[in-house]
């Protein structure tokens, strides 16, 4: 039966070493949980692709276009001549464009963050409270008991303080 095994380490280097060994031993990519971001994760577990920058770019683009459109089209709808200026003036509308570019860039970045990190979490997911305080956790799924003992051996070899059984994963 599939179980999730978590090994708790006291420092990030041993946790990373354990994760690397698990990956090389053929397990599914282990998940690292930590109270601080760990340096060197990408070398061990492979480079992560982030799609957030696409969200930011498209957010900014949409914001820029909508900023200028908002200012110009609303000025045309009810023309209000002021100060001897034209109805569509470029410098003031560029400022509106700039502000809305940044606003939409920010909002779309947040959206991109939520989508790519799969937060907010709808379902209950496996969690180790100590990983938020001062321990570094490596979680891996094991297909059967043979995998389980191999994982335990790797954990102990890397110096795990504690090995925990997290039960079945949905």
């Amino acid at each position, binding site marked *: 039966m599939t179980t999730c095994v978590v090994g708790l380490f006291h420092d990030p280097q041993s946790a990373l070493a354990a994760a690397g060994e698990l990956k090389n031993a053929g397990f599914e990519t282990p998940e690292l949980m930590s109270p601080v971001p760990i340096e060197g994760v990408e070398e061990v577990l492979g480079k992560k692709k982030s799609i957030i920058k696409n969200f930011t770019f498209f957010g900014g683009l949409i914001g820029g276009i909508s900023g200028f459109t908002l200012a110009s089209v609303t000025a045309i709808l009810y023309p209000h001549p*002021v100060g*001897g200026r034209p*109805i569509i003036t470029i410098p003031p509308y560029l400022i509106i464009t700039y502000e809305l570019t940044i606003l939409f860039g920010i909002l779309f970045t947040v959206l991109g963050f939520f989508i790519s990190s799969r937060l907010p979490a709808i379902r209950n997911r496996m969690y180790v409270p100590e990983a938020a305080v001062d321990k570094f956790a490596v979680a891996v799924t094991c297909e059967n008991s043979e995998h389980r003992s191999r994982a335990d051996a790797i954990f102990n070899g890397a110096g795990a303080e504690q090995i925990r059984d997290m039960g079945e994963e949905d």
Partner: protein
Amino acid sequence: MSLFSRFMDGWRKYRKPGYYDEFDYHWTMTVDLDSCTGCEACMTACQAENNIPLVGEEELAKGREIQWIRIERYWEGEYPNAKLNFMPMMCQHCDAAPCETVCPVSATYHNQDGLNTQIYNRCIGTRSCAVYCPYEVRYFNYYNHHWDSPLDQQLNPDVSVRGKGVMEKCTFCIQRIRDAKDLAKDDDRRRVRDGEVQPACVQSCPTKALTFGDRKDTESQVYQSMNNPRAYKVLDELNTDSSVVYLKKVDA
């Protein structure tokens, strides 16, 4: 017409400074500083015509007077050789008005008669137009005003009474202009003739120092006075394109 030429027409129209190809009327006032005696009859007439509140002694001491037209006094020399200059100052209805651009809710705009109009209902009272006006002719209602009976029977029904929190200023008696235009329209769709419409201040000036008319009408008095060698505009160097022409006082 193709979509492209329609777009280009619209672009040209909306990019034209001032938006109007030409004004319907271009109301102008002339002030002859040689004739002005500083009697302040214009101020009284304006106050009567436009329901301008009397703010009271206390408020006046704080500097919160509302005088749509005011007589500015400048003197040179000491008594008994003091020389006094009077300058009636009202809203100049600038074609390139600095006050119009800054209103965030478009409560002031330039209409097609060349007048700088104030829409009391739209004003939220940011008072930035008063800051931007270099002539300082915009006045703010700091309190709700109250006319004790029977003064409330003197109020002009053609002009709204402003509540607290709105800006107001000289309108060239737009209610009289509108009446004159209506009359002219009923009378065989002609244009308003020179002298048919006079704001309250022009009407009441005893020395005829103030003249009012349409500068598009080349036979009007104002058009001729604009070509007077004494003619100048106050703070012309600020390029506000004002519609009030002052005729310099001649030192005898």
